[in-house]
């Protein structure tokens, strides 16, 4: 009982410190630096401590200080309660959804079985969906409560866009569930120990559809209509300042991390290296004794998982800075007239292949 409790608390602290402590500040730096590289600029390089700049890595600290000392402004005529609530609703799902994503397998440590996932739920993927769908309210309420027409338009666009792409996203994942026969993300991770059963080989169309829908849910370019700065100032968070603005911003970055985690788990072998099974890892490290081997295997698996996650974060950032923004009717047309039929086709083909295979 005590051992289980400590295990869970350690896992929660680990994931929390990686996501909120490492990824969310560092992604702000990555975004600036990568956009600068791609647009042939120098990028963030001003913040310095005693003239040390280390490629602009002090900027996250400078940002934090700036944000914490800024005035928290609520516009006149705004709904104070919902205006304050909205950023919290937006940030919470982004943090909570990582609870069901496994970042490693099962390990025997001193007779205690350790499973590297915070909550191994039977409904796994549906849990992520449930919370992701709640994050819509943060955007919608933020847009509505600001008493600003630009904000309201942004909120309306966001709600329509997120609803539309949730449908296609759910249908895309049905193909994945059909192939693996489970909603539990740890099961899906286990099956992908075999390199040829990685999701990308079993569901190539599903992967492309899922990634597109995920970017649309994330509301980043080319799907950043809700905050289109050339039309709507900054869309739903125009009237936000200080810490509340950063909460929206952190929510967006943590969503990127979660999306990368889901893509890694569903399509790219979760914590497994290609052609290397967990058993092989354990036997390679066997000179370190059974517990030592388990710990080393655990470290390798966790590293592999987060390296894959970082790769997909890089991919999403590259897409964000490469493609121009869609027009709003194009976003809707893509969602309903192309993604949805393709997702249905994917289910149909998967079903036929599964039938023939058996």
């Amino acid at each position: 009982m005590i051992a289980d409790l400590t295990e869970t608390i350690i896992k929660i602290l680990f994931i929390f410190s990686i996501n909120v402590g490492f990824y969310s500040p560092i992604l702000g730096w990555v975004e600036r630096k990568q956009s600068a590289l791609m647009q042939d600029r120098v990028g963030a390089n001003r913040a310095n401590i005693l003239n040390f700049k280390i490629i602009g890595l002090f900027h996250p600290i400078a940002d934090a200080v700036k944000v914490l000392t800024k005035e928290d402004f609520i516009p006149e005529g705004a709904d104070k309660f919902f205006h304050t609530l909205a950023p919290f609703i937006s940030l919470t799902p982004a943090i909570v959804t990582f609870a069901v994503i496994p970042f490693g397998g099962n390990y025997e440590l001193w007779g205690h079985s350790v499973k590297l996932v915070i909550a191994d739920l039977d409904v796994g993927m549906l849990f992520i969906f449930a919370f992701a769908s709640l994050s819509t309210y943060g955007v919608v309420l933020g847009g509505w409560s600001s008493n600003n027409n630009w904000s309201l338009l942004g909120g309306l666009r966001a709600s329509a866009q997120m609803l539309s792409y949730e449908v296609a996203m759910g249908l895309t994942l049905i193909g994945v569930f059909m192939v693996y026969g489970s909603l539990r993300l740890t099961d899906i991770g286990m099956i992908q120990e075999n390199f040829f059963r990685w999701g990308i080989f079993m569901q190539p169309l599903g992967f492309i559809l899922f990634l597109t829908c995920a970017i649309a849910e994330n509301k980043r370019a080319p799907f950043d209509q809700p905050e289109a700065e050339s039309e709507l100032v900054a869309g739903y968070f125009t009237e936000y300042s200080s810490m509340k603005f950063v909460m929206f911003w952190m929510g967006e970055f943590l969503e990127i991390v979660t999306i990368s985690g889901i893509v890694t788990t569903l399509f790219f072998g979760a914590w497994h290296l290609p052609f290397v099974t967990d058993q092989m890892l354990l036997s390679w490290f066997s000179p370190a004794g059974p517990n030592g081997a388990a710990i080393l295997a655990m470290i390798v698996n966790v590293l592999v998982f987060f390296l894959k996650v970082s790769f997909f974060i890089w991919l999403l950032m590259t897409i964000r800075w490469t493609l121009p923004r869609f027009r709003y009717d194009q976003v809707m047309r893509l969602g309903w007239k192309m993604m949805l039929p393709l997702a249905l086709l994917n289910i149909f083909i998967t079903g036929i292949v599964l039938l023939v295979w058996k």
Partner: protein
Amino acid sequence: MQLLMFYLLGFGAVVSALLLVTNKRPVAAAMSLILTMLFLAGIYVLLDAHLIAALQIIVYAGAIMVLFLFVIMLLNVEEKAGRLSNRKIALQFISILVVGAILISVTGLIKIGPSQVVDSFGTTKAVGQMLFTDFLLPFEIASILLLAAIVGAVILAKRRIDD
């Protein structure tokens, strides 16, 4: 522990439902309805029906209520001042009492013994198996009904655009 959780969730559900009907601002009322649904999902989890809980949040709290909010914002529904007359309030209370009395007497008639619950109860697999074997006909009828509703909605919306 389970009983305590049930009372907490039940209390939350009742309070948020009361907030829903007493609140005059449409958006606040809609948000309390979402809160009610989240508490209901919590009660489903207590009953070991994890799948139903997840679907409750996805479908009702996540999708349908977003549309509610969307419509409220789009139409810009105004709050209306004023209060109900005493006669109407009295009428409402009487009808609540009558409906409650009927409900309690009906539930008293149905005898439910201690039911046998299998270990896999409420898992995705168990629900799916039941849905596609024992309850296949009702399931298919419901899906045809939904399809008819979708087609109807499309036709209604299209006629408006064509005009």
